[in-house]
């Protein structure tokens, strides 16, 4: 239940202002609790009251706050303060560092919701009056003179609400455990994906190359072809081994059909990367008929945007890989807009990178055979992540079976 602390000062007893304010709170659907009261010692002295107002929803609360404000009730905590950024890419000292929780900034008495919240950024204010806007800004994107919020006064974060017990994610909690009824969990995830779609939200898939190595590439491909994934984040490896599978039937030189190593198989992924480089890119390889199957083929033919972020040990890399990590971050930042559910499967690096960009309101599932991956993700602030410790092949196979319309 949203609440706000108010201060009311003055001759609030003799003037009946306190009675009036409390009456308004109740009349307009709120509740109050007087958390502090100091009576003026003499008739000339003013009295102080601290009142916590709560209401069933934010709109009711806002209406009450608006009404009582004109009778002198002021919100505890003042306005957000800003200072200009001293240079491009530099926040002023004492800048407010964001969390991934829903955040609002108080400007001229109004709470402005922060757009595109993500953790470990700053807050920039633009415009004024009715046009005032608060945005989340990563450090490298700040420009000299931008009005950056300083300190935490006038900044409000809303903790993630306890999950509704009837919610499919509700029963799962968010602690990491290997001891879960996995099929039931995967069924819940499939249901959550369907709910997200019904709510007009996007599904993001973040994957590592183990998906290919374990032979689960075909399941992910089928899920993409059935339209269940709206955005794909990965690195060079997932794409390279997927293309290796498409061109040579192997992953890291191991024949997926038989499970046996193929002579000179360790070169396959290099030859695959080379062919895509020769074609000019993954899309071009699809268009030229070089790449005819696989996850990346499914993305291109289903118009699923993908961001391939490079790392220091990449072979090649594929021409589509963004090797400037700041640019890759920005591309991922654009990619997470509108995402309601994120599946992170078999990758520590990309899961943590994506977790950094996601608002806490995004349902986040992390699947890995190593509990450490999920722990790392949560330790780095993605507390909303639900961890499922299992092999990715099992997970994707089960998910493909539970999502409507997936053809294997």
């Amino acid at each position: 239940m949203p609440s706000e602390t108010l201060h009311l000062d003055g001759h609030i007893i003799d003037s009946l202002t306190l009675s009036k304010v409390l009456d308004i709170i109740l009349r307009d659907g709120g509740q109050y609790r007087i958390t502090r009261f100091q009576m003026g010692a003499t008739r000339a002295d003013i009295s102080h009251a601290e009142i916590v107002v709560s209401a069933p929803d934010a709109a009711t609360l806002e209406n009450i706050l608006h009404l009582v404000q004109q009778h002198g009730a002021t919100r505890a905590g003042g306005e957000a303060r800003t200072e200009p950024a001293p240079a491009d890419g530099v926040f002023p000292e004492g800048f407010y560092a964001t969390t991934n929780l829903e955040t609002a900034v108080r400007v001229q008495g109004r709470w402005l919701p922060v757009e595109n919240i993500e953790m470990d950024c700053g807050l920039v204010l633009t415009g004024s009056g009715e046009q005032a806007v608060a945005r989340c800004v990563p450090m490298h994107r700040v420009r000299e003179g931008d009005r950056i919020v300083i300190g935490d006064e006038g900044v409000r974060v809303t903790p993630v609400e306890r999950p509704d017990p009837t919610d499919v994610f509700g029963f799962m909690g968010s602690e990491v455990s290997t001891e879960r009824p996995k099929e039931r969990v995967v069924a819940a995830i499939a249901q959550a994906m369907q709910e997200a779609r019904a709510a007009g939200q996007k599904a993001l898939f973040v994957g590592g190359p183990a998906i290919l190595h374990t032979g689960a590439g075909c399941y992910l491909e089928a899920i993409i072809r059935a339209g269940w994934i709206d955005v794909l984040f990965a690195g060079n490896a997932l794409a390279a081994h997927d293309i290796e599978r498409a061109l040579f039937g192997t992953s890291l030189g191991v024949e997926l059909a038989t499970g046996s190593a193929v002579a000179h198989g360790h070169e396959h992924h290099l030859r695959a990367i080379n062919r895509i480089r020769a074609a000019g890119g993954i899309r071009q390889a699809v268009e030229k008929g070089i790449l005819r199957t696989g996850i990346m083929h499914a993305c291109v033919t289903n118009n699923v945007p993908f961001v391939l972020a490079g790392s220091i040990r990449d072979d090649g890399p594929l021409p589509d890989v963004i090797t400037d990590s700041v640019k890759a971050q920005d591309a991922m930042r654009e990619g997470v807009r509108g995402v309601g559910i994120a599946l992170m499967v078999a990758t520590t690096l990309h899961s943590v990178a994506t977790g950094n960009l996601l608002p806490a309101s995004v349902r986040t599932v992390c699947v890995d055979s190593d509990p450490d991956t999920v722990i790392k993700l949560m330790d780095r602030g993605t507390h909303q992540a639900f961890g499922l410790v299992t092999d990715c092949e099992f997970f994707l196979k089960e998910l493909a079976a539970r999502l409507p319309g997936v053809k294997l």
Partner: protein
Amino acid sequence: MSRSPLLNLSAKAPEAQTAIHPAPLSAQSDGQSAQARPARLLMCAPTAYALKYEINPWMKMENKPDLDLAARQWNALYHVLTEQVGAQVELVAQAPECPDMVFTANAGLVRGQYVLLSNFRHPQRQVEEPYFRAWFEAHGYKVQLPSVGCKFEGEGDALFAGDLLLAGYLKRSDICAHRWMSEALALPVLSLELIDDRWYHLDTCLFPLTADTVVYYPGAFDPYARVVIANNFQTIEVCQEEALRFACNAVVIGQSVVLPAGCPRLTRELESQGYTVYSIDLSEFLKAGGAAKCLTLFLR
């Protein structure tokens, strides 16, 4: 033009303006000696009075005041106050771009050597602030300003009932000004919410007759304010008909009450209690939403 009573008066005005005034420190003296002195008021001769905008329901561009008549009415008020009631009236010159500057009650609130200056709600009247400030500074007052976001319209919304301040809010002044006044003057303030645009200032719908008695029009106040008034004062209620003629916009000095014409019921009531009532036709100022009280500010 020189026959205009207003200009005749203006000829006298510079004398008053250039006179060296004693610092108003004396107003800090005890009540008895203060009572012995004549009341001091600030007024502004209507040399640039006009209706140039609409910022209250009384102002209608199609109902402009007759300026010659306005000047005669103002002169009549001035003469009653100075000659019949025995008040000492100071004058501030009207700035040409401030048509409402004649309503000096809204310049601020004076107590002793302090003036709490106004911070007008409407930009049309904010232009008056530097002129009033200059006058107060030139006359030795210590000027205090409300915070930028806190609107305050002086004696228009703050009236003394003895050592208690009655203060109106919501229409023109903000309630935050009440706390500021209370702290600046170390006095209790009763906050009264105004609910009808026609009585947009407290002094349009209430006047303290004594420290214990107020005259007011209940319809201008919210139910809480009515209870506050009833809890703290003996009351004389004004009927709506006379409230619409600004019966409550009255100047009380001792046993004299100066109020706008057309308020026979209140006049009879006050006379029955031993007051001397002076009714003055202020029709041309009512067209801007002001009458006797709006045209005067107590300097005390």
